[in-house]
């Protein structure tokens, strides 16, 4: 058996990169990376099962394929970093592969509707943006069924990729999704992670760079109601000089038992000189009761950076804002709508497709009870 790659010790980077399930212990809940997660609920994600693989439904672009997991075009170098992702990679039989040809320019978004095989599913998606290509990929996750797996976005040199991942699952659903992005030389990545529902959702985005000059942005908008749980645990791993990272996560919570966790780990390695990094998480509590944990971590192994900053804040719906708007004749429901739209605008305005951003906004508003229709 191949020995697992053991990374040099830092507090933030994964300790193990491996495709061997046995290289990862079953999480007990005391480990730093698992301390917020509902371990017991997720237990079936920690042992290999014979689940089906997530496929695609409906019409799709020729760039989108459903392939055998052994397809040699799938990334050979990417390694899982925890037990669920190692299990999903080992057990999945198929993968969804989106290949954006070198130098191709796609003016309209490539929409991929993911289709679950059954009640429990392994997910493996790869988006390969060829050098100098320009494209937008929209991944709509299925609303029913538990899912465990990974999405990879791999950008060639100077590729421009916008990738939108929308999870709006039923309350009974659990999803555990890694999202690994590797940015090529002078490439430009914009990832949008929109999570509007699900019982237990845990996303683990990782952003890293293969060569200097890359730019990566990850913008997240998430919404929790009732007693839903969401954890967004991200790692920006600056391994290359002169790259830029920008992370913004905005969460709105309502409901007695809603609990969100945002972990923003940014690691700037010794060789990553001249980088710029910024990360922000803001949470808006719309009612009494919900809990929002927010932990930014910045670890600098070099002092030679252009800028490095982070911010995190959780606040109540601001009565002063409502008062100001209402004092201008605006009814309370419209005022709430304006404030919530304003809260999410820096994320949702980045979605190029106005129909899509509009429908996401309406879904957010109807879930928050601001408007009573979809």
């Amino acid at each position: 058996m191949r020995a697992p790659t053991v990374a040099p010790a830092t507090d933030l980077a994964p300790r193990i990169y491996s495709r061997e399930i046995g290289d990862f212990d079953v999480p007990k809940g005391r480990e730093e990376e698992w301390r917020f997660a509902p371990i017991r609920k997720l237990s079936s994600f920690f042992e290999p099962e014979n689940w089906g693989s997530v496929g695609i439904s409906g019409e799709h672009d020729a760039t989108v394929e459903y392939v055998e997991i052994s397809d040699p075009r799938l990334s050979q170098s990417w390694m899982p970093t925890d037990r669920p992702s190692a299990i999903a990679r080992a057990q999945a039989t198929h993968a969804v592969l989106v290949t954006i040809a070198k130098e191709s320019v796609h003016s309209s978004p490539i929409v991929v509707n993911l289709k679950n095989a059954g009640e429990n599913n392994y997910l493996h998606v790869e988006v390969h943006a060829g050098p100098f290509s320009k494209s937008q990929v929209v991944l709509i996750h299925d609303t029913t069924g538990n899912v465990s797996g990974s999405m990879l976005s791999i950008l060639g040199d100077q590729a421009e990729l916008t990738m939108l991942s929308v999870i709006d699952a039923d309350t009974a659903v659990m999803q555990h999704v890694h999202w690994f992005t590797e940015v090529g030389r002078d490439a430009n990545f914009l990832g949008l992670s929109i999570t509007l529902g699900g019982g237990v959702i845990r996303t683990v985005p990782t952003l890293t760079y293969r060569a200097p000059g890359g730019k990566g942005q990850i913008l997240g908008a998430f919404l929790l109601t009732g007693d839903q749980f969401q954890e967004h645990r991200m790692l920006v791993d600056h391994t290359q000089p002169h790259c830029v990272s920008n992370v913004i996560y905005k969460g709105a919570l309502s409901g007695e038992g809603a609990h969100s966790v945002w972990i923003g780990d940014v690691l700037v390695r010794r060789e990553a000189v001249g980088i710029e990094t910024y990360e922000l998480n803001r949470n808006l509590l719309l009612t009494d009761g919900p809990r929002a944990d927010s932990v930014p971590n910045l670890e600098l192994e070099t002092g030679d950076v252009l800028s490095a900053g982070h911010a995190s804040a959780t606040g109540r719906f601001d009565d002063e804002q409502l008062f100001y708007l209402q004092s201008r004749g605006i009814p309370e429901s419209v005022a709430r709508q304006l404030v919530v739209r304003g809260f999410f605008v820096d994320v949702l305005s980045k979605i190029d497709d106005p129909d899509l951003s509009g429908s996401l906004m309406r879904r957010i508003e109807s879930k928050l009870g601001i408007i009573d229709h979809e």
Partner: protein
Amino acid sequence: MSRLTITDLHASVITEDGDTPILRGVSLVVESGTTNAIMGPNGSGKSTLAYVIAGHPKYTVTSGSIDLDGQDVLAMSVDERARAGLFLAMQYPVEIPGVSVSNFLRTSITALKGEAPKLRTWTKDMKEAMADLQMDPGFATRNVNEGFSGGEKKRHEILQLGLMQPKIAVLDETDSGLDVDALKIVSEGVNRFKESSDAGLLLITHYTRILRYIKPDVVHVFVDGRIVATGGPELADVLESDGYETYTAAARA
């Protein structure tokens, strides 16, 4: 012709440690076409009066009444009061992240008028109103009050005054934080509004400076939560030279 009648108004601020009485029997009438100044020392309750008229949820009215042309203002929600014709230019306007000035103004005008303004005339009206106050057209796309300087916030309040055309307007320390040039621009904005409409003004201020530009018909001295003296414009000059000392001493006695 409109009339705002405030009668023996008592109000408290709601805090975590209980309610603290601030207004202790305010009686006041503001009629169309008149400018009424309220002058008083820091902490005397001037902003509280303004907020209570507008319906801020932080305050509770313990007794007294506010009436606008026969309608019970205290029974109305904040937005109903605005639609009834009341306006408050705030001492500390609130920032609203992610909401642009133009979207905000348009939403407000739509709510006040009951229908959306015609896009073409609306854009033109807004541009002109901004130019009158020497506001850069770029303000329209900025977020409401976000990163505005003190003076820019006040211009934005007066911009709204002109566009919303209320019947009765309360201006809470619109002069504070303005240098002389900005004070002139803002005062001209208020005077243009006065001339173009028949509105009644309640001008709250700490200093007499603004009254050189906006001429009051009546001056009220406000101390310790109530009006302690009322007079003509000459009363402002007395306050300018003597300060509030005689009134505050009397209130303490």
